[in-house]
């Protein structure tokens, strides 16, 4: 996972609400047992038709092809819990998604994969969508440390992110490793915690 420092990049406008994880990475690509190889299938049904690129899809147009910042409408990432969605996004090269709201599971999955979901008010999104439509190639600078987003013409917005999640991106934490440091606590919890089911299965 790339660690996350300040960077500037082109903003690709994806003017759609409720973009679901089925659209981000369709099910026919979920059969891979590896963590990689999903980037090329990002937004597959929107990007391709009969194996050919659809010219009207934003990521198929210049200068958006390699844009690291994606703009979208509310409830981005809803639906299936598949982490294949942020895997595909990260592998494709998108590092920041800006939207008025995100679905919970997707939001949570992003931080584990070096993708920063930024929540901004609707009016900021309106402004940014308008900017991108008037100025193709419009860029934003993202500063996670300061929790700030800005352009070179005086637009600036601050965003919220839980300190823990911010750290996940800044330092690329090993979550499991850190939880395992509490192993003794977990073990002692277990020793008194009652579970009432018992499954008899033979191997």
């Amino acid at each position: 996972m790339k660690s996350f420092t300040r960077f500037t990049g082109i903003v690709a406008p994806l003017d759609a609400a409720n973009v679901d994880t089925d659209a981000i990475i369709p099910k026919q690509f979920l059969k891979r047992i590896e963590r990689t190889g999903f980037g090329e299938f990002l937004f597959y049904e929107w990007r391709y038709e009969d194996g050919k690129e659809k010219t009207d899809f934003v990521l198929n147009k210049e200068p958006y092809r390699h844009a690291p910042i994606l703009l979208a409408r509310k409830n981005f990432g809803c639906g299936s819990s598949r982490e294949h969605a942020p895997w595909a996004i990260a592998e494709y090269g998108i590092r920041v998604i800006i939207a008025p709201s995100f679905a919970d599971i997707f939001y949570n999955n992003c931080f584990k994969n070096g993708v920063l979901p930024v929540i901004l008010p609707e009016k900021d999104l309106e402004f940014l969508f308008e900017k991108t439509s008037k100025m193709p190639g419009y860029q934003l600078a993202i500063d996670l440390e300061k929790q700030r987003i800005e352009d070179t013409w005086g637009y600036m917005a601050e965003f919220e992110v839980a300190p823990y999640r911010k750290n996940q991106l800044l330092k690329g934490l090993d979550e499991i490793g850190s939880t395992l440091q509490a192993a003794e606590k977990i073990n002692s919890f277990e020793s008194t915690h009652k579970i009432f089911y018992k499954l008899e299965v033979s191997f």
Partner: protein
Amino acid sequence: MGKTLYEKIWNKHVVHEEGDQPSILYIDLHLIHEVTSPQAFEGLRMNNRKVKRPELTVATMDHSIPTTDRTLPFRDEVAKKQVDALAQNCKDFGIPLFDLHSPNQGIVHVIAPELGITQPGMTIVCGDSHTSTHGAFGALAFGIGTSEVEHVLATQTLKQFKAKTLAININGALPRGTTSKDLILSLIGKYGHDFATGYVVEYRGEAIRNLSMEERMTVCNMSIEMGARAGLIQPDEKTFAYLKGKQAVPQGKEWEEALTEWKQFYTDKDANFDLSVEFDASHVTPQVTWGTNPGQVAGITEAVPLLENLPSDQVKPAKKALQYMGLEPGMPITEIEINKVFIGSCTNSRIEDLRKAAKIVNDYKVADHVEALVVPGSQLVKKQAEAEGIHQIFINAGFQWREAGCSMCLGMNEDLVLPEERCASTSNRNFEGRQGRNARTHLVSPEMAAAAAIAGRFVDVREWPARESKEVIVK
């Protein structure tokens, strides 16, 4: 001040809390399946880690498997590889697995309740968003990503921030001919597809108490379709009666002990929710989705909405959805013709669902131009249906009677809705491409799906004629 059911379950499972950090929450049951687990096991291997409590982990195969004859070899080699990987992982890490040939195989959210491993007051997770289903038992159950699957495998815990709480009070009685599927669809229709994002929902009130356990599962199952982290229903006598005698449920003295424990899980009278809404079940009608998210839904006597009647922020998504769906604004729902029917999925593939659908089918025949599938949620459901002769009703009518799995709910196997085909589906998601590329999905209850299969279009099941007068309905 009193506590909500959610807070009580949470408190019972907190291992460690620290300032603004997420809490470490103990997980009582971890369900896994072939699609969202392989990369988690790979992670364990790379870091030389073990599964902490394999006996609190249960695996099954459901998403990418064929629902046709299981004695035949897989035709899809990639899916085969995925299923084999799960079998190998379970073997290597000592995890109980219900494989394709197990009498307990089925959709993960169908098998856990029927085995009795879903119990009140538990924490349950799975790499699958419809884990919310198990909330019907008063268990805190939610979907997680694959990194979290790995975290639970390695530690039997999860790092979690506490959610906000939302009470949905549902009073009044569901009218005759409507179901819990119609209830949850109308709720999502009223409040919107992302209404409950960030919340754990507790469904309360008379209408909920009157539902059977299976009907409650249908409601909780679709919590995620309004964005909720989880859906909960307070356990009651129905819950306990459902569990009694199930394979994994204790008996005798331990049953009494379990019962005492489970009875602590309710919301105190003076507890506060972050948000509360009221909903009247007595106005619910049979629902049919017309768009590409579950909130784009209308009653059977209504029409596809006119764009000018929609709130301004819904116009653009509706336009896009209608274009995808090949529908015109103002078109009556009963004029929508279908050519596929899918009765199945973790929303509606349990025995009561099949019984209700079979009752509608009676001895009618599936319309000539319709291909209809019934896919039981589990092998146990299938066996039960066959013991009751329900399968015969479907087969005689021209339905295909399949083996248990997710099937056409997401079309990861060969059960697909083809481009521009129109499907009446009892599943939970009508997203673009969900059932197949350019597939058009209409979410409905099992009764509505069965009636649509016969009529070839959507019809109002409340007026479905009894056997004597069957000439009236079919074209």
